């Protein structure tokens, strides 16, 4: 920038470091937000964008570093401090009371003098809405609103409190393209009014469309910033994914490869009628690890759930090829159509899923039960009569405990109280013990330290060598490139490409991940 003297900083974060236990979420980050600009904060999932912004909004407190607002050093230790400094953050999960009207939500928590005068507040809110072009019905209850209306209420709430600096955490993730356009118009209006904005996103075309400047984070580190007019999708992708890092994950060549699971034209809709997967076609082979890459929420979860029979399928086929392709084999050993089967029957075929959701315990494990109890969740149908067979699950629990080095006082210790990594070992260990024909894992190493991650990688590779078709949904591109044999890239519920992991590079994956509908680069 040439006009350095005229640029004023609304916010300057200097040498910010934030750790959670051993994990460094932000490392020595220095970031500036100029007055009256829209800054995009770009980065992959887990690159520390939200953590960094939460330190501005008072949810977290930095371990090291200093924040300046309007060139004055400040301490932000609570959301209220942030409000007082004119910083407002719109979180991904809206903080609104469902049975209140928009007005009630907006004035909630404000200690204004005098009695509660909703009419006067409504007038002030209407002014704000007209100035920036929000379309909000103030007397509508939140639960009757669409997602974009709720978001508008959140933004108005922040403006009503007099915020000059707005932080929007992935505001477009839940919006339709038309709603996104509307939001961008509002954002430009706010900028014209002198507000400074930060938008957290990983959608490149939005970055290019709305922002003035882009700052890129990768794995908790600040990579750099560029003026948007000097950037292109390609240059931003390069900054975002960085150079390949060698991890030295053991990857033997696949053996005895033949199709195991064939997915053809899979299309699903969620309960709101939004298309989550669109015409997904691929084959998972035995003796091979198929990686699935994509930005979070691109349909990974839906895909795995659809295959395991937990998600309603509106179109497409899922064919399961058993071990022997003998024509004379009994019916349950022939090629089978999995669509329409119930989850139990799919499981019987040997399709196993170890999905590690964000809250880890939400799916697959019962927090208050011990390892043995959780093993029994898979085997309770096996017993005879009314009594449960505790012996086998206990043996299995003991085996997992020893073989995977699960840190727990006993197999009856509630899994809720184990550390995240150990919970994951239990979950993955149990699924592997079922001797599946197809093993699907999602985010199997999320939140794990490096050693435990390698244990899981090796487990998966072992399974692959046994002839299992392994599907690995992952976030870290370096891992995907070194662990998997082939990588399928999902983007917005569509397959944007299937690449050979041995020859592909990060740049290629990054491009595929951010390219909507596999269309041109300048989407």
């Amino acid at each position: 920038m040439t006009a350095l003297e005229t640029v004023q900083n609304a916010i300057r974060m200097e040498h910010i470091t934030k750790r959670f236990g051993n994990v460094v979420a932000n490392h020595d980050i220095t970031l500036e937000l100029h007055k009256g600009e829209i800054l995009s904060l770009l980065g992959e999932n887990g690159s520390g964008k939200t953590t960094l912004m939460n330190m501005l909004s008072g949810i977290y407190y930095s371990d090291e570093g200093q924040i300046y607002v309007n060139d004055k050093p400040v301490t932000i230790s609570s959301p209220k401090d942030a409000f007082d400094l004119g910083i407002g953050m719109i979180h991904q999960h809206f903080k609104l009371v469902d049975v209140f009207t928009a007005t009630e939500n907006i004035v909630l928590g404000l200690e204004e003098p005098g009695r509660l005068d909703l009419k006067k507040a409504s007038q002030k809110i209407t002014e704000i809405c007209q100035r920036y072009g929000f379309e909000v019905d103030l007397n509508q209850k939140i639960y009757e609103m669409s997602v974009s209306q709720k978001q508008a209420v959140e933004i108005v709430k922040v403006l009503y409190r007099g915020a000059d600096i707005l932080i929007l955490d992935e505001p477009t993730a839940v919006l339709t393209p038309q709603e996104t356009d509307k939001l961008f118009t509002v954002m430009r209006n706010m900028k014209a009014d002198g507000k400074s904005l930060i938008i957290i996103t990983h959608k490149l075309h939005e970055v290019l469309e709305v922002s003035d400047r882009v700052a890129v984070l990768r794995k908790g580190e600040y990579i750099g910033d560029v003026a948007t007019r000097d950037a292109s999708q390609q240059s931003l992708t390069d900054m975002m994914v960085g150079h390949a890092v060698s991890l030295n994950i053991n990857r033997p060549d696949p053996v005895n490869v033949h199709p195991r699971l064939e997915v053809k034209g899979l299309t699903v809709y969620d309960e709101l009628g939004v298309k989550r997967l669109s015409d997904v076609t691929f084959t998972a082979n035995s003796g091979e690890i198929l990686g699935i890459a994509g930005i979070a929420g691109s349909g990974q979860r839906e895909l795995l759930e659809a295959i395991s029979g937990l998600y309603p399928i509106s179109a497409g086929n899922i064919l399961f090829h058993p071990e022997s392709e003998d024509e004379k084999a009994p019916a349950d050993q022939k090629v089978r159509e999995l669509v329409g089967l119930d989850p139990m029957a799919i499981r019987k075929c040997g399709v196993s899923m170890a999905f590690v959701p964000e809250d880890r315990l939400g799916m697959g494990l019962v927090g208050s039960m011990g390892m043995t109890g959780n093993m029994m969740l898979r085997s309770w149908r096996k017993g005879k009569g009314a009594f449960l067979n505790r012996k086998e699950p206990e043996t299995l629990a003991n085996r997992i405990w020893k073989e995977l080095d699960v840190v727990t006082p006993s197999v009856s210790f509630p899994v809720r109280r184990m550390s995240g990594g150990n919970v994951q070992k239990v979950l993955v260990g149990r699924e592997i013990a079922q001797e599946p024909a197809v093993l699907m894992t999602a985010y199997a190493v999320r939140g794990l330290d490096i050693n435990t991650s390698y244990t899981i990688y090796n487990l998966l590779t072992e399974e692959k060598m046994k002839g299992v078709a392994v599907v690995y949904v992952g976030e870290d591109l370096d891992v995907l490139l070194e662990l998997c044999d082939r990588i399928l890239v999902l983007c917005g519920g569509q397959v944007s490409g299937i690449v050979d992991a041995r020859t592909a590079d990060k740049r290629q994956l990054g491009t595929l991940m951010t390219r909507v509908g596999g269309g041109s680069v300048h989407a």
Partner: protein
Amino acid sequence: MFDLVSFIPRAVMQGIPLLYGSTGEILTEKSGNLNLGIPGVMYVGGICGVIGSFFYEQAVPAESMNAFLAVGIPMACSLLGSLLMGLLYSFLTITLRANQNVTGLALTTFGVGVGNFFGGSLIKLTNSEVPSIALSATSAYFSKSLPFAGSLGWFGQVFLSYGFLAYLAVIIAIVASYILKRTRVGLQLRAVGESPATADAAGINVTRYKYTATCIGSMIAGLGGLYYVMDYACGVWSNNAFGDRGWLAIALVIFTIWRPNVSILASILFGGFYILYLYIPSGLDLSVKELYKMIPYVVTLVVLIIVSMRKKREHQPPASLGLPYFREER
């Protein structure tokens, strides 16, 4: 013919303890605390009032009793007793995050036990022949109605024949309704009960609101116990006479869909249901009487079914009712 003029006052007198109980419970539940200890709190409110007035009556001969003290001492004792119960519940569920249902039920059992223990002790102190204590001097002050009420015929009997606590109950219910609906404090209290995380993010002190609402709610409910002994039962305490009125108060909360102002009429309706069997010729058939006594509960069930079927969000219980709030858990 059905004698409305004598039926209505009796229904009202039955209803007032329920009105206190339900108003208190509504305030508590609006903060997200499901205090199932209300029957115990009301019981404690009653016995504490009895203890206060017992010692005052013992210390001062009936002729020289001061009207202000005769009313003030039992009331203060009752409020203090139910406040302690409310604090206990709040400490367990808010600070220690104990399970609300378990805590509430334990508090009910505890409250009834405390009441019966002190009730029994006092009865022993009086060396009475019958298992009850009569505090008729104090009761006279509590149940004093306006002097001209008797001369106004049916109007006086239906509207003016009650002690001051009955009118206080109605006033408290109206004030509670107004606060919940129209004031900033009410808005914030409702936000705490609906979504404590949202309230917290908006800068509202969730813990303070929960404590305050639960304790004030308990104190209001405790007055229901006091009214029952001092006015309705004419100052006669006998163990377990309070019956299931506490549970009826909780049923009333659901029946009125968390609205204290509706509770004013609804509590009288429930009171009427409660004594309906006395007014309907059922002969000596005891089982039929028991069936009539079921009516309030049946009506509550019907309301629950209707409300659940209509699925209107405003008619649902506060969204975080019964759930503890951890700030760190997001």
